[in-house]
């Protein structure tokens, strides 16, 4: 394949802009700029490629481009915000498919020369095909087209056997001087099946992580095919995405508290995870998550309790409040009549920390506001936010008015572990769908949240 210096340099520039764009996208402040830069770079890359030496088939190519682009553009614009994840999945799958198709075409043309190129072509084809079929399944599941989680008997064993066969076939193709087209087609088909059956049993809740993984896969596939085409721009863009995507997948899995291995090998079966909260499961959350949730909220209500007093966390809590307010978040404190262990316990501590009186509200003043609040941050409080007090006549706390923290969009509960409050009863709030536990002593946890909030500029 030949090119010329101008085109080569243009590709270099495109690769650089992609990297800068990606960097920009990892901070909320510059994210928007990032995608716009990357968008222009993509346009430039496409235009430049039209002048690539020895190009033919322009008419058909342009039809293909326009068709693909307009279908995707239109669907991407029309879809509801809540359906975004499956769109990401399907577009990603298409990228993987494209990479696989490139490999297929190169094999068809017999233009894969040399061991390394052959290996990378095959690897790219495998990964690209897996990404393609896997993403299609992910899309189908999220879109509700495929309703049931599909799980073979002895799924893990089947996966391994199928993968092994595919890999062996791949090795054969690599080592063959002129691999037969038949084998190549079989190889592609097996790869597609592999992608599908790996993804099929994975549940809805784990889908974002899987999509991210498939996204990293596509990146790698693109990078490998870039080598086959001796196009470093493809290599750089693909591998950068592959690496960052892998990291991102890890981060996402960590944020969801699900090791990647568990997701793929013992998936949560779809239904349960997609449905309502499971009685008996508290969901954890990390400090970074909590920080971002509050940092980008417009309203936060803090509910302090005896645990804040025990931890002596009041100064940190106030510092966090100030930070959030600087970032434009409206923060108030909701004091339950019997929070703590003496009348005015919370007042004394908040005053000590310097919280101005006009941010402090009692139950009657603030209880109606929870429903319009993005985040209720419960710090070492327990009984005073326990919804069973409203409903369960047998509960020792029945009849006590409680702070309606559970009505907030998100509830974040800071406590050390599974300890109960003064009354010793279990708290139904902690099991609710919209509630996340942020474990640790309040002082430290809030300290962590503070540093994360700071890092968000």
């Amino acid at each position: 394949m030949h090119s010329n210096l101008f085109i080569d340099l243009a590709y270099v520039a495109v690769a650089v802009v992609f990297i800068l764009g990606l960097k920009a996208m990892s901070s909320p402040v510059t994210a928007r700029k990032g995608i716009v830069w990357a968008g222009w770079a993509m346009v430039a890359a496409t235009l430049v490629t039209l002048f690539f030496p020895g190009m033919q088939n322009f008419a058909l190519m342009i039809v293909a481009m326009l068709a693909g682009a307009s279908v995707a553009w239109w669907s991407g614009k029309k879809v509801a915000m809540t359906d975004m994840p499956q769109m990401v999945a399907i577009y990603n799958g298409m990228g993987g498919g494209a990479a696989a198709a490139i490999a297929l075409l190169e094999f068809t043309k017999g233009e894969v020369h040399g061991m390394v190129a052959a290996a990378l072509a095959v690897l790219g084809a495998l990964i690209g095909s897996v990404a393609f079929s896997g993403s299609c399944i992910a899309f189908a599941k999220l879109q509700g087209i495929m309703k049931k989680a599909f799980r073979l008997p002895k799924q893990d064993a089947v996966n391994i056997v199928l993968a092994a066969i595919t890999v062996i076939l791949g090795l054969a193709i690599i080592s063959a001087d002129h691999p037969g087209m038949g084998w190549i087609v079989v190889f592609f088909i097996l790869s597609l099946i592999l992608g599908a059956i790996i993804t099929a049993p994975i549940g809805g809740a784990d889908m974002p992580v899987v999509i991210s993984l498939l996204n990293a896969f596509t990146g790698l596939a693109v990078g490998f095919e870039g080598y086959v085409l001796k196009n470093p721009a493809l290599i750089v863009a693909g591998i950068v995405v592959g690496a960052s995507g892998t990291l991102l997948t890890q981060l996402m899995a960590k944020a969801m508290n699900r090791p990647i291995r568990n997701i793929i090998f013992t998936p949560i079966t779809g239904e349960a995870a997609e449905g309502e909260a499971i009685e008996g499961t508290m969901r954890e959350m990390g400090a970074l998550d909590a920080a971002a949730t509050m940092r980008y909220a417009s309203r936060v209500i803090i509910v302090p309790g005896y645990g804040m007093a025990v931890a002596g966390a009041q100064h940190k809590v106030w510092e966090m409040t100030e930070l959030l307010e600087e970032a434009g978040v409206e923060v108030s404190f909701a004091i339950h009549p019997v929070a703590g262990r003496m009348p005015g316990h919370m007042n004394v501590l908040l005053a000590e920390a310097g919280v101005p009186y006009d941010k402090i509200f009692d139950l009657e003043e603030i209880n109606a506001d929870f429903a319009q609040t993005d985040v209720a941050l419960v710090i070492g409080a327990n009984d005073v936010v326990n919804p069973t007090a409203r409903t369960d006549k047998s509960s020792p706390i029945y009849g006590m008015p409680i702070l309606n923290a559970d009505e907030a969009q998100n509830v974040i509960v800071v406590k050390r572990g599974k300890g109960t409050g003064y009354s010793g009863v279990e708290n139904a709030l902690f099991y609710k769908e919209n509630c996340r536990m942020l474990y640790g002593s309040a002082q430290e946890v809030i300290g962590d949240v503070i540093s994360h909030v700071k890092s968000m500029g």
Partner: protein
Amino acid sequence: MPLVIGVPAETVSGERRVSVVPDVVKKYIGLGAEVVMQKGAGAPAHYPDEAFEGVKWVDDANEVFASADIVFGVQPPSQAHIGKMKAGAVWLGMLQPWSDKARVEKLLKKNVTTFALELLPRITRSQSMDVLSSQAAVAGYECALIAADHSPKFFPMLTYAAGTIRPARVLVIGAGVAGLQAIATARRIGAMVEAYDVRPETREQIESLGAKFVDTGVSAAGTGGYARELTDEEKAQQAEKLAKAVANCDALITTAAIPGRKAPIIITADMVARMKPGSVVVDMAAESGGNVEGTVAGDKTWVGDVLVVGPTHITSRMPVHASEMIAKNLFNFISPFIKDGELALDWEDEVIAGCCLTHEGQVRHDGVRQTLGL
């Protein structure tokens, strides 16, 4: 005819609180009740008559008692006033149920229903009715102020142009509601606070307020959360550690009252004698006998160069808010049972049942019956 709620002026000397405040009266009227008040009943608590809206004013307490279906009181009613009550009427407030057998007999004879909030079961739901707690909060705050005000020393650390004054050490005995409030208040003013209580779970509570727990090395924690009896040796060790802390402090606040019983003597005369010149002792339990040997209730006495203050009617030092709290506590207690101007008590209700002293000519509270021998 709507329910009539009666509020007489308090008669006990030194008492400045009142059992309703204007906001609460408004709510009773909103529930369909009529409120009859004795003129000037709110005045000692700085609630002038004009502040109350929609009230029927009468000149004399007798009229209040004679006309009301429910009578409120911060202190128990006198024999004479009980005599004026309608049969079947309800009396609600603080009744000192353990102390005066004759009063209880008179109540039985008049066949009135009485609720003594001292008997309130301490369950979660009843916290909003808990007069003992709310008044303890007032008392704890006041005692810390009394100590600061009477101390011949600065409470806070203070660096001034010619030197530095180190912060005063305040020791609080008893970390119930009042004790914790005293700790918090003394800390706010700037003192270094230590505190002691027999209940071991108070350690965490004391520390949650930034104070230090006096560790006597003896734990009274027994099985099932009850305190166990200490051995003599342990008692001696405890007393010794305590005496040291007492000798070391600049101000001592004792809050260990036990409702219905004489307060335990925790600080002996000997311990007081070992205190530094210019120290101050505020014995919040003075009214019920005192935690400090030699306290004179209602007076200040010098024991050597140590001032021992035995305040009484502590909550009457802050009648505006003490009354507001009581008024809300009483309202929270009784209002669920006032519907459309009628009183409909639910005797199944644990709180109602638990608080009732007399009803239909019977003493309903076992403990009181046994104590008074009725």
